């Protein structure tokens, strides 16, 4: 198309069944289109593979957070009860390590969980007053595949044909999502 100012234009295709979405997404990718993102009402299994999305690193963050919690918990207890202000409690040693395990465990879990969630929200830029646009019915029963028109070589009609083959019910074009 001539007068198309590309770069920040997008093409969105609407599907009714996740099978079509997956197929469409995969084919579009192989056909050289740049799949910008996919929007679904629920996590569609196989989607990540179809759009070749690398696995998330959040697992590691959660692990490290847990480690942090563990160290913090243990240090807090040993320091307060054995070094900062040692008290003879029930004739037990100042550093009653075995008795510190429960709290250490709880703090491990707490840190890991909270930090993981926090990072998730940050990474997804989810926050209370977020004003992000949402495709119509995508939170209900629509599956949307969005391509970015990275350069002038983008052939809209090709895309439309491809999508139609996968029972897209509607294809739209536009700019400035997200």
């Amino acid at each position, binding site marked *: 198309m001539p007068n198309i100012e590309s770069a920040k234009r997008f093409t969105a295709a609407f599907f009714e069944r996740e099978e079509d979405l997956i197929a469409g997404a995969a084919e579009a990718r192989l056909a050289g289109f740049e799949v910008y993102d996919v929007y679904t009402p629920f996590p569609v299994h196989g989607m990540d593979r179809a759009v070749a999305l690398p696995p998330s690193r959040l697992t590691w963050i959660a692990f490290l957070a847990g480690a942090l919690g563990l160290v913090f918990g243990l240090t807090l207890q040993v320091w307060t009860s054995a070094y900062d202000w040692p*008290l*003879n*409690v*029930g*004739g*037990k*040693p100042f550093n009653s390590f075995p008795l510190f395990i429960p709290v250490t465990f709880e703090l491990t879990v707490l840190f890991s969980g909270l930090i993981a969630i926090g990072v998730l929200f940050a990474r997804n830029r989810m926050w209370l007053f977020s004003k992000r646009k949402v495709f119509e019915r995508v939170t209900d029963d629509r599956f949307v595949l969005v391509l970015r028109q990275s350069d002038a070589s983008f052939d809209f009609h090709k895309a439309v044909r491809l999508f139609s083959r996968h029972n897209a019910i509607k294809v739209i074009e536009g700019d400035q999502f997200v």
Partner: protein
Amino acid sequence: MSRSVNKIWQELLERTADGKPFDLSEKSAIAGISRRTFLEVLGYSTAALALSGCRAPEQAIVPYLKQPVEFTPGVASWFASVCGGCSAACGTLVKVRDGRPIKLEGNPDHPLSSGGLCALAHGMVFSLYDPERLRQPLIASRVATWQEIDNEITQKLGAVKQSGGRIRLLTGPITGPTSLETFKKFLAQFADAKHITYQPVSTDAIRQAHQRSHGVNAIPSYRFDKARLVVSFGADFLGTWISPVVFTRGYAKARSLQNDEREMLRHVQFESHLSLTGSNADTRVKVSLREETRALLYLAMLVAESVASDNASGFSSPDLAQLTYKTRAALELVASELTNHPGSALVVSGSNDPDVQYLVNFINHAVGSYGNTINLTATSADNQSSDQEIIELVRQMNAGEISALIISGVNPAYDYFDRQAFINGIQKVPLKISLNSTMDETTSLADCVCPQSHFLEAWNDVEPVRGTFSVNQPTIAPLFQTRAFQESLLRWSGDGRSFYEVIRQSWREKLFPQQKQYATFDEFWDQTLQKGVTVSESAQSNPAVFKSDGLQEVTSRLISSSRETSDDLGLVLYQSVALRDGQFANSPWLQELPDPITKITWDNYISVSPRYAASSGLEEGRIVRLSKGPAQIELPVHIQPGQHDNVVAIAIGYGRTKAGKAGNNVGGNAYPFVTYDGTFRYQAFGINLEKTANRVEFAQSQSKDSMEDRPLVKELTLTEYTTGEGEHHSEHGSLWSAHDYPEHKWGLAVDLNACVGCSACVLSCQAENNVPVVGKDEVRRRREMHWIRIDRYFEGDREEPKVFYQPVMCQQCDNASCESVCPVLATVHSSEGLNMQVYNRCVGTRYCENNCPYKVRRFNWFEYSHSDPIANLALNPDVTVRSRGVMEKCTFCVQRIEEVKIKARNEGRAINDQEIQPACQQSCPANAIIFGDLTDLKSRVAQLKKSGRNYTLLDELNLQPALSYLAKVRNREEVSSLA
């Protein structure tokens, strides 16, 4: 608070600038008792309190052990004095903090009580601050000044003088020589005047019997400490009889095994209801009331025969068929033991029948007790007049022959056996003057009331035992407009001197010459005040001889009187350890002290034997109506193991109606069942007993009687002890090294062999540590707050149980289970081995209480009232008053430990053994509690813990308590060790 008080105080000082005591009643006298003046009075009386907190008594008083006379704020001074609780007049040290007496403790230097005190004595501090005390004189229940009332009375007495009418002075037992002088002086003014002493619980028979047997009209002093064998017929000498503290001291001394003695006093008790004394006996024989007499007769006969005394002929044997086999066997054993203990045996009887006492004297004479275990020269000096005299007085009053009656310190309108007769009588008396300190049953009948000061506010001297003199020092200026009763009498006999001067003068004239130690009188006087006692070396009168004439008629009288009649249920009246005769029934401390035997508080009750209860379908708490002629009483039933089936027992001293808020209508008044037959008798027959529909739940601090076969109180026989059987030592391993206690390691040993369960420690602790009183309902809910309790267990046959006492307070465990569970570190271990409770950190989870196997922790369920400004004066400033929602418990009196530590540090010396004594130890009459430093291996407590009798409670839990117990030893064979 302080500012406003200071204001009033200054005002008062201005007004008292002329040196005369500030007289608050001027105003009220003008306006009568209007609401306004009432408020003023109220205001001033509180002001007077604030004032009294800041001023010492007018006369020079001398503190114990060369301390400076002036009060150092925050530092306690100790004054030697005597207890006015009963006529035994034990030596006390009064702890005075910031001008307020806050505690009585035993005076170790006192030759008789030597440091012991009873529960009642500890209650005395409360009676000083009793809000119910009268605060100014009253004429016909109208507030008056002393001026007015003195004029009124002198004028009326003048009239009596003119008419030569009869005047009577009715007091309790008075032993003070100076007081007696004062009485004489006062009574001398009148034509027909007489001083009558009246004791609701009389021991007159002993006096009469000795009059008959030895020609000595007095109660001898019994030396339990010198005895090796004591045989008691229903005498509760450890609990309430004559001078329990002195007797307990001697008894414990003679039974002590604390210095590895190999033998100890043996104690046999014949009694009908389970008394404190009986519960401690090595052999206790349960007999009915009449059987008791027969047993005594039989014993007398056996003794007479075996010592082949010429009196043996005098005996006609009692009907042996009426003695149970068991009793006979016991008596024959006892008889042989008695004859094997010449000069070291002692027989006593609680009966108030002169015949019985005469027989007792005979036995004592036959086994050579006189001069050894019984001292007829140092006789008890109280109760000069016989029971017969008050009977006569009441008759005369009713006949209208008495024109003036002055009453001091007695309350016949409550405790006279024929109350109504007395009340009717006194109304016929034109001039009735009461010197009592509260508006009690009798005082409310008087037309002139001259409230006397509390013994802690007044000078006095006493001579409880001939030759032993003590001065009672005031430790605070009178809180209210009161006056020592002797002073009132002085006024009315036209003598302007203060009683203080009178005492000094009589001492200068009488006692000072008798001694050679001190050159000047002042020196002598000061020394006496400091030590609290002086013993005059009066010439030993030659020992009286036993007059055996009349033995014949006595025995025959007894034999006929003691013959069993059909269905004869006997009633025995006894004094409870806490309330005694009921004079101080308004003390909540005494009311809430669990009875050592029944553990019931705030009530009296009818004790019956388990078998009797079963046969007549009575259950615990069932209210029954007991009646005999006009006398009638409704009380709940208490089923008492160890009581004879033919006997019901009731404690006197309850059922006051005008004692005050705490004492009114607690229990029922059993005095009406007292009978008179030459002397007052505290037994009755031919009573009838009917069930009612009602039932009550007792406020009991312990409801489980049995030890459940758990080795809690360990017991040995004397042989087991001497041969070292039944000893055991426990070893506990540990996963980690224990904490070390560099400076001190406080420990405590409780000698269960010495402890008789008298419960004095409970009240001593309550007074020292500001332990709140919670009241009947809360005790019922099991929320009593005592930091130390006496566990009492019955073991074996419920009909003849073995009784055990075990004082339990915080055991200060090294591995304290309470500490490790507290989430906020509110209870931790000190570097001196104390288990500390941090009140202001406690959030009150009660987890520590749950996890304490000894259950010695006490929780503040409510904000316990400390609202009464007067009662609050009794609080010990060294101990925090705990607020609602925090846990509290025994601290080994940490405040005392710190006090001594500071003292020692200031003087740059080490702490001496026994220098620190917790409240419970200090006044224990039996020396059963020993506190000390375990790091000091020579300390008494460290030594005792080496004993073979030493064991820790619940040892298997390995809590490593700092408190341990020394096993009980019974001086009889069949006992088998529980260890």
